[in-house]
């Protein structure tokens, strides 16, 4: 399953730096909604749009992090920052939070 999120350019750079520092390959993306169509394991993809353009994707875990003590953003998507895969820039509609993505290599 493919999900899409919109990040600021600095945030994407921060996430990629996260992988370079060698401390942890996993990063999270907080959200209010729990995606229910993820498949088990690292079989999902998290596409990232920056400034209205899809830029690439990270492998996305089938597990979602849940913090029962956080009312505002209880969930977090877990993705692997080491395996960033850039794609040729494709226009993306503006949206908030995450959405199921229809972009992929076959759509390019």
């Amino acid at each position, binding site marked *: 399953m493919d999900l899409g999120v919109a*990040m600021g350019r600095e*945030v994407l750079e921060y996430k990629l730096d996260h992988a370079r520092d060698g401390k*942890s390959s*996993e990063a*999270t*993306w*907080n959200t209010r909604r*729990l995606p*229910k169509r993820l498949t*088990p394991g690292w079989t999902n993809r998290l596409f990232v749009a920056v400034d209205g353009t899809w830029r690439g994707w990270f492998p996305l875990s*089938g*597990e*979602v*992090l*849940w*913090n*029962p*003590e*956080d*009312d505002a*953003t*209880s969930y*977090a998507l*877990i993705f692997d920052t080491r395996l960033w895969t850039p794609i040729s820039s494709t226009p993306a509609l503006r949206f908030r939070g995450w959405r199921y993505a229809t972009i992929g290599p076959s759509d390019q």
Partner: protein
Amino acid sequence: MKPTEGKRPASRKRTPWILGFVATLFLATAFAAFLRYRGNRGPFVWVENQSGLPLTGVTLLVKGASCDLGAMREGANIRVRIRPVGDSEISLRYRTQDGVTHDWSGGFIQWHYVYRAKLIVRPDHTVKHDVWLAPLFAFSSDGIPPN
């Protein structure tokens, strides 16, 4: 017969014992590292539907908060990692096709010592509840970093 005949040199005798010690130390360290790795990622709850029927409105409840897992077909499973929340009750609620709501409460879990909790909904609508403990390392209590 010479006194030393039939005896192995002392250094040879010790070799297997030392190898065994080193191997045990290595395995113990590797296992501890694994627990540490899992611990830093947070314990997870595994919910599996083995009721023989599709379920709807599956909701996991921890410490008064609910995690809406939605519908689960027969045989489906969902894993959710949990930020440790101290000692808390864990409950599961779901509906069957006939509209009946089923509630299950598994008592208290000390999340800081749990590596995995597995909840399996069985055909008689009891819930099999297993907990794997990771007693050596406390889980990270850091909050989720901002986006």
